[in-house]
């Protein structure tokens, strides 16, 4: 009884939250014309999100690629199909690990920074000051950060995938002795454009969602130090859960 009422209350809260996030997104779309006249604001945010995340994305990508190299080599060598390692690593990265891990890392690094930045602006009345100066903080602050993040995630995913394949190559070919030519030619043989597109679609959706949540949580944070702290936590938790759920849904739709 108690558990059921607890769960149903959480469910209602969750639906209400998604509604609020959706409503916020509509508000940002209304402020879009302001930003379209000032593309430099978005470029600035792509730069911010990119610089914040690039090192962590490349490091993580390389290690994830190396693990795929080890595990893939182990699995394929049991089947005496070591030559397929390149294809296996590329498919794993492009279709799944690249978009998902990049989105999770983005939430942890750039997403929390966005939430904290905007939350602090709220807490120090900077957003109100803009309002009173007749400048819409939705257009000036929220939308450029949303778009900047949304554009960054697919770009970062591409970096993650490239570095990951290098990692797999390093372990598979250089350490384990998989044939260099076979590694690349099998990759070319088996990876279809549809596989690339699956990854692109996923990373585009994850980017829009991860960045939306980060901006929403910052914008609606309680204007206190504690409130901003809680909001950054919510950014990571909510983004992670949503990315994993969406990953399943997109995969099921596309297969």
């Amino acid at each position: 009884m108690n558990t059921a009422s607890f769960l149903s209350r959480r469910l209602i809260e969750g639906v209400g939250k998604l509604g609020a996030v959706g409503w916020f997104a509509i508000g940002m779309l209304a402020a879009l014309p302001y930003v379209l006249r000032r593309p430099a604001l978005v470029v600035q945010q792509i730069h911010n999100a990119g610089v914040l995340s690039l090192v962590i994305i490349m490091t993580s990508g390389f290690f994830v690629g190396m693990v795929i190299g080890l595990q893939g080599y182990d699995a394929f060598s049991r089947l005496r199909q070591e030559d397929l390692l390149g294809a296996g690593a590329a498919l794993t990265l492009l279709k799944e690990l690249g978009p998902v891990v990049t989105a999770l890392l983005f939430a942890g690094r750039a997403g929390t920074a966005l939430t904290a930045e905007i939350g602090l602006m709220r807490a120090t009345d900077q957003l109100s000051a803009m309002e009173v100066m007749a400048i819409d903080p939705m257009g000036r602050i929220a939308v450029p950060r949303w778009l900047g993040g949304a554009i960054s995630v697919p770009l970062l995913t591409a970096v993650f995938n490239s570095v990951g394949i290098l990692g797999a190559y390093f372990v598979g070919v250089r350490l384990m002795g998989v044939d260099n030519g076979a590694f690349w030619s099998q990759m070319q043989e088996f990876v279809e454009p549809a596989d690339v597109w699956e990854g692109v679609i996923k990373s585009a959706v994850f980017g829009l969602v991860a960045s939306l949540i980060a901006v929403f949580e910052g914008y609606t944070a309680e204007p206190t130090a504690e409130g901003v702290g809680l909001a950054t936590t919510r950014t990571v938790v909510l983004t992670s859960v949503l990315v994993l759920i969406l990953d399943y849904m997109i995969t099921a739709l596309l297969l």
Partner: protein
Amino acid sequence: MSAISAAMAPMIEVSDLRYDSAGRRIFAGLNLAIRRGSITAIMGPSGTGKTTLLRLITGQIRPKSGQLKVDGAEVASLDRRELFRLRRRMGMLFQNSALLTDYSVFDNVAFPVREHTALDERLIRTLVLMKLQAVGLRGAADLMPAQLSGGMSRRVALARAMVLDPDLLLYDEPFSGLDPISMGMVLRLIKVNNDVLGVTSVVVTHDVEEISRIADYCYVVSGGQVIGAGTPAELGQSDSAMVRQFMSGAPDGPVPFHYPAAAYETQLLGGQRS
């Protein structure tokens, strides 16, 4: 409305304003009128809702009921575009300065100019440096807000609030945290803006003595209502003990200095025993 009566009508007209915040009554029938081109002081104990009143005037929040007109327009009924058009004629100095932390002092002051005008950078530079000179901070143009003291931030925020020469300037505690020299300077600046440019000024402050030197009219707000109104001289002679206490700053009198609480002795002794 004819042109003449429009010019005579008050810049801000508040009647029977009611506002609750988080279930607490802030305003219970507030009435006041602010004459065009005047300097009007709003005084009252801390937490009485002075900042809230400025937020109502700028349309950041909406009253629960009652009227609030700025320049003849009911603020709560304006749509966003109309509200923004009205706000472009207002400047506000926030109680905590509210400078944009990732812009330099110069860019903070230039921010509204760049947003709202098509002036070229050379003109903007001249304009911004003039305003910074007026608050004595031309030399600090390249500093970031984090490098400023509280009093300096306040003066930069003041330069920003007046950079577009608004018709209505709202000052939330412009003197707090200023040394006597800066205070005198800000006081003169408010007066000059008013005399030379005909700005209507609303000054929220606790500094009774300073504001009395320049204010044309004062309102004392307490308990959600206006408890005293008049020129500074009139208020000093007020019949109301509450207003006199406020003007002279005596801690004992009808205006409670303390937030409502259980009797001091009871609470202290009770705490000791339990």
